[in-house]
């Protein structure tokens, strides 16, 4: 898994690439917590290059969402693949995340 962080004016953007499962999720957890620890409250996670996500990835996203919401911010998702969207829907978590079609719209939503 590869994660690229871009600091934008309104939010930090995390571009995630590859598989997010129980053996790789610690990298996503660390990247998200590092941004939040540094005071970022608005996050966009680009999932367009994530080809597979298990419940481990969902837990990391929900945990980060709870942290930023507590600080008055939000974590928004953009461009999940059909498979990732299916996992979000099956878990009933699609309603708690704002999901956008692309980076520009997601970052611009803040």
């Amino acid at each position, binding site marked *: 898994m590869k994660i690229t962080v871009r600091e934008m004016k309104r939010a930090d953007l995390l571009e995630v690439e590859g598989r997010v*499962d129980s*053996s790789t999720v610690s990298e996503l957890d660390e990247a998200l917590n590092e941004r939040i620890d540094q005071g970022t409250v608005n996050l966009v996670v680009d999932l367009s290059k994530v080809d597979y996500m298990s419940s481990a990835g969902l837990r990391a996203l929900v945990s980060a969402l709870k942290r930023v*919401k507590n600080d008055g911010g939000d974590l928004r998702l953009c461009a999940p693949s059909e498979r990732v969207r299916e*996992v979000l829907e099956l878990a009933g*978590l699609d309603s*708690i995340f704002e999901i956008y079609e692309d980076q520009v719209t997601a970052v611009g939503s803040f």
Partner: protein
Amino acid sequence: MNNLHLVPLVFIVILVGLLVLATLVARRQEIVLRVPARLESVRLLTDLVTDLARRARLGEEAVFHCQLAMDEACTNIIKHAYANDPSGEIEMVLRIGNGECEIQLVDFGEPYDPERVPPPQKASSIEDARPGGLGLYLIRNVMDEVRYIPGPEGNRLVMVKRRTPGK
């Protein structure tokens, strides 16, 4: 006595035998594997089921569901049955063919009653979102059959997925 006239017959019998064998192999493939109950093994098993289910033309959606179920079930065994003890083992029996994929996972750790694991509630707000028990919930949602048989010779989880035409 000249048996040369039997040569074509023997050849045909061998050929038919090989064809029958090849058909049987193509119809139903069984793989048994025992791996350490560690996160590194999960990728090996998910890659294996993905590859074989794809070769058996199960359909991309069913292939993804088998991959997800294998991942979630192995992760549950490692975290819950063995409480992350790396000396534990998982035995996998994978049967693929006839438009069906059957995954059996046997662990020798703590048994649990899946009926007592409550399904996560549909989260309408972030306060409701409790991702505990998600793995089992996803498995039940994506597989056609899920059975759990605890026993003194191991706890067996049986998951079956059937071909989804056109998907």
